[in-house]
């Protein structure tokens, strides 16, 4: 999906997957995006790791938030 649709559409699907499963593939998605399209950006000091870091942080945040959601008890 990363190859054919907009990155934000793939991101939405990834977010849904994260809430449904413990989707480690989302981190892999971030790494693949950076590998294919990464360019140095000032926010991360010129390192093209925005989506790797972002997907990791999102993964951890969703896993942490699941503890507090009634749906997962």
């Amino acid at each position, binding site marked *: 999906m990363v190859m054919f649709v907009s990155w934000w559409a793939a991101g939405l699907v990834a977010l849904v997957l994260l809430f449904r499963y413990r989707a480690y593939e989302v981190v892999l998605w971030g*790494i693949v995006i950076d590998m294919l399209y990464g*360019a140095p950006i000032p926010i991360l000091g010129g390192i093209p790791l925005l989506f790797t870091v972002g997907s990791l942080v999102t993964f951890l945040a969703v896993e942490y938030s699941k503890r507090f959601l009634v749906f997962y008890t």
Partner: protein
Amino acid sequence: MKSFQRKRSRSVRVLIISAILALVGGTVIVASPDVRDAAHRAMLPVWNLSIPSERIAGNVIALFRTRASLERDIEALRNEVKQLQLETLELPILRAENERLQELWRRRVYENSLLGRVLARPNVTPYDTFVIDVGGRDGVGAGDIVLVEQVAVGRISSVFAKTSIAQLFSAPGVETNVSIATSSLSLTATGLGAGNFIAEVPRGIDIREGDTVVLMDVSERLFAVVERVEAEASDPFQTIRFQLPVTMSKVDFVEVVVDGVYPIRVETEVDAALEPDI
């Protein structure tokens, strides 16, 4: 209860260790030029995919044709007719592309420039970048200027053997030295993404909507047009917003102005491994 808490803290530890390993692994992978080059080579066939799906389906069906000779012949002829029909449909598209390429080639400003086809555009790539199908083998180098319709839109940020990534000047946070054509005022524009820029100038400077902006480091050609000037009474500065005059989502070809000798042969270990034995 204790065993549950122990189990939970172990699960958290595993999660944290996995996250650290993933971050380190991801950094190593993304920072490695050879790995990225291999990924781009693997993606090239996907990006270049332009064969109509019916033709693919027709070729697959042909593999399963029956043994009876008459039915086999009929199936083969049917597929051949389908292919010819599809090729005929493609002709106007190819003709239009050919005319467009010839027009772009005639309108080149720089002699030492290459035409590159866009494989992925900013609406697909999240970094405000283009992926183009010319790379080190064609003479492209990091820092080369990328033009669209003779407007400088970015620079090459990463070069691989057959592809390269062009980062737009409008990528978020990227600063570019520009000048307002009417006043020769030089200022620093900060990219906001999707071809948009923002800059601040002192209030006394007369800048109006529609004023042209040129790129200082490259040439005195059109770079952008002032869209809006915002000024508040209490603010000593006024904010200028301007935009590239090109619709990034509709760009099919770009021109790369190469420096140095053309073509430049870039030998990499990956190239040597994949070279066919002739």
